[in-house]
C-alpha cells in the first residue's frame, strides 16, 4: 500500500478502510485507551454492525471517523482512516466540515432532543442542503419535500411547516434520517438509532433504513447492543470489547459459528423464545478498567475458557477464514 494518499476520491477504493485506529483520552489519572488498534473495511452499500457493551469503544470509533473526538484530552493517536481512498486523518478542519453531512453523516441516538425546537422541520432538514449544495428558495423546498417523501412522512407538504414538538418520537426519527440523507451521503453511521423508541416503531424505522440503504447503496456502520437488530440489518458484524475488535465476520458466521468466547457469551445471553430457561445467561464479571489493562488478553479475566497464557500474552488478530478475523489464543491452537 502506498503511503501517500491521493487527495481526491478514488472510485476503485473501498468506501471506508480503518487501519490500526487508536483513540486515547489523556486524563488526570492516566491514559484511557478507549479505541486501541481497530481495523475494518466497509464496502459501498454494505452494513457493518458494531456490537459490544457500553464503554467498549463503539461510539468513540465512529466519532473518530468523523474526526469529532470529544475534548479535552481526547486524541486520535495512530492509525489510518481512508474514505474512498482519501486519508481523513490528515484533512484540515475545513475539509472535514465539507465532508460531514455531504459524504459522511451520523444519525444520533435520541430523536427527542435531536431537532432544534425553534425551527420548522423543513428548515432543519434543509440545512445540510443549504450548507453543502447551496440550495435556496423553492429548489431547496422541493428537495426537502422529496426527502420527506423518501422517509415516508405522511402529508409532507404540511408536515415540513410544523415544529418538532408537533412530531411524535418515530416521526422525529424519520425527520432526522431525512436530514442525514438529504445530501445523499455514501456513509452513514447509525449510533443506536432506535433505542429511544417503542419496539413497534423501532421495527418500522429499521425497515425504512434498510430499504433506503438498499435503494441508495449507502454504506452504514450500525452501532448497537441489540443482537436481534444486528441479525436483521447487518451484512457483517464486528464484536468490540475494551477498545479492540475481538471477532469480525459476516452475520451468518457470527450467529452460526462464533469462535470467540465473548461472542459466544453475548449470543448465549439473548433469551430464546419458546425455550424454558431458568435464569438468563450473562457474561460474568465487569468490563476491564481501560486505565490499567493487564498484559494478557483483555477478556481473559471474564473468560470461562481462559488458559494460563491468556493471562500472560495479548493475542494478535488472525484470519480464520476469508472475512473472518479473530483475536483469541484458543483458535490459534485449534
Amino acid at each position: 500500500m502506498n503511503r501517500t494518499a491521493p487527495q481526491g476520491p478514488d472510485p476503485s477504493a473501498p468506501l471506508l478502510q480503518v487501519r490500526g485506529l487508536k483513540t486515547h483520552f489523556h486524563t488526570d489519572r492516566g491514559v484511557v485507551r478507549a479505541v486501541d488498534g481497530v481495523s475494518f473495511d466497509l464496502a459501498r452499500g454494505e452494513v457493518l454492525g458494531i456490537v459490544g457493551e457500553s464503554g467498549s469503544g463503539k461510539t468513540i470509533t465512529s466519532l473518530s471517523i468523523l474526526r469529532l473526538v470529544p475534548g479535552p484530552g481526547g486524541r486520535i493517536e495512530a492509525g489510518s482512516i481512508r474514505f474512498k481512498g482519501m486519508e481523513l486523518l490528515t484533512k484540515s478542519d475545513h475539509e472535514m466540515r465539507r465532508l460531514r453531512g455531504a459524504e459522511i453523516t451520523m444519525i444520533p441516538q435520541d430523536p427527542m432532543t435531536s431537532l432544534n425546537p425553534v425551527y420548522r422541520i423543513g428548515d432543519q432538514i434543509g440545512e445540510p442542503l443549504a450548507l453543502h449544495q447551496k440550495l435556496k428558495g423553492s429548489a431547496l423546498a422541493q428537495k426537502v419535500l422529496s426527502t420527506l417523501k423518501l422517509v415516508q412522512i405522511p402529508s409532507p407538504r404540511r408536515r415540513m411547516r410544523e415544529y418538532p414538538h408537533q412530531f411524535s418520537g418515530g416521526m422525529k426519527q424519520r425527520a432526522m434520517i431525512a436530514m442525514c440523507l438529504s445530501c445523499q451521503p455514501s456513509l452513514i453511521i447509525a449510533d443506536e438509532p432506535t433505542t429511544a423508541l417503542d419496539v413497534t416503531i423501532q421495527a418500522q424505522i429499521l425497515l425504512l433504513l434498510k430499504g433506503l440503504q438498499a435503494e441508495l447503496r449507502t454504506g452504514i456502520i450500525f452501532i448497537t447492543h441489540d443482537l436481534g437488530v444486528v441479525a436483521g440489518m447487518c451484512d457483517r458484524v464486528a464484536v468490540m470489547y475494551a477498545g479492540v475488535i475481538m471477532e469480525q465476520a459476516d452475520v451468518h458466521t457470527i450467529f452460526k459459528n462464533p469462535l470467540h468466547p465473548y461472542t459466544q457469551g453475548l449470543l448465549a445471553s439473548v433469551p430464546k423464545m419458546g425455550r424454558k430457561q431458568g435464569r438468563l445467561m450473562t457474561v460474568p464479571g465487569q468490563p476491564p478498567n481501560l486505565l490499567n489493562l493487564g498484559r494478557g488478553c483483555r477478556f481473559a479475566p471474564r473468560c470461562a475458557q481462559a488458559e494460563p497464557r491468556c493471562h500472560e500474552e495479548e493475542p494478535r488478530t488472525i484470519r480464520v477464514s476469508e472475512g473472518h478475523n479473530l483475536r483469541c489464543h484458543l483458535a490459534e491452537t485449534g
Partner: protein
Amino acid sequence: MRRFPVAGGGILVIFILAALFSPWLATHDPVKQDLANTLMPPAWQQGGDASHLLGTDNLGRDIFSRLVHGARVSLLVGILAVSLSLVVGTWLGLLAGFFGGRIESIIMRLTDMQLAMPFILMAIAIVGALGPSTRNIVIVLAVCNWATYARLIRGEVLSVRQNEFVELAVVNGAGTGRILFLHILPNVVNTLIVMATLDMGRMIIFEGAMSFLGLGVQPPQPSWGNMLADGRAYLSVAWHLATFPGLAIMLVVLGSNLFGDWLRGFLDPQRKKFLAGGRA
C-alpha cells in the same frame, strides 16, 4: 396563546409617543422657572390651575411638561443601557458556555469581579472619570449590568448544548459560528426577552438613583429620576412632586413586563399551536 396585552402595549406606546413628541405635547418650557407659582397642586385640587395640569414644582416649573420631556431621557437611557449590556453580556455568555475551558474561566472570573463590585462605587468611579452626562449614564449602567446577562446566558448555553441537535448540526458540517448563532442563540432568546423587559424598569430606577446622587442627568434637564429625587424633600407639603414621576416609572415597568411576557409566548413555537386552535 394569550391575546396581545392591550393595557401593557398601550402604556408603552403612549410613553414612547410622549417621548417622541414631547416638544409639542409640553404645555410649558420644562426648565423655565416661575417663582411666583411654586408648589402649585394639580389642576383638580383646590388652588390648582388648569394651565398647570399636574401642578408645579419647588421652582414653579410645570410638572406635566417636565414629565413629558423626562420620558425622553428615561426611556432612552433605559433602552440603550439594556441593549448595550444585553449585547455584551450575551456575546460573552455564549462564548463562555460554548467553548468552556480557559475562555470560560476568564469570562466567569470577570463577571464574578463585576458582580462583587458595589454599583454605587462603580458609578461614582466611572462618572468621576468621564464626567456626568446622559451618554455616560448609559455606559455606567451597561458596565454594571452585563455580568448578569453573561451568567444567565452561559447557564442556558450549557444546558442547550447538551441537546443532540447541536451534535447533529456538527455532524452535518455546520461551523462554530453557525452553531452558536443559528442553533444555540435562538434557544436562549426567550430568557433574554424576559430578562431585558424586567431590566428596563431597573435601569430607569437606577438612572433615578444616580441622578439623585448628582451623578446622572444634570439639572435643569428633567429626568424621572431627578424629578423623583427633587420631590422627595417636599413630600410632606406637596405630594405630587414625587408621585407623578414615580407613577410614570411604575407604569413603564409594568407595561414593559406585560409586553415582554406576551412577546415570550409569541416567539415560543410550543405556544403557537394554541393560537391555531390545537394541532390540526
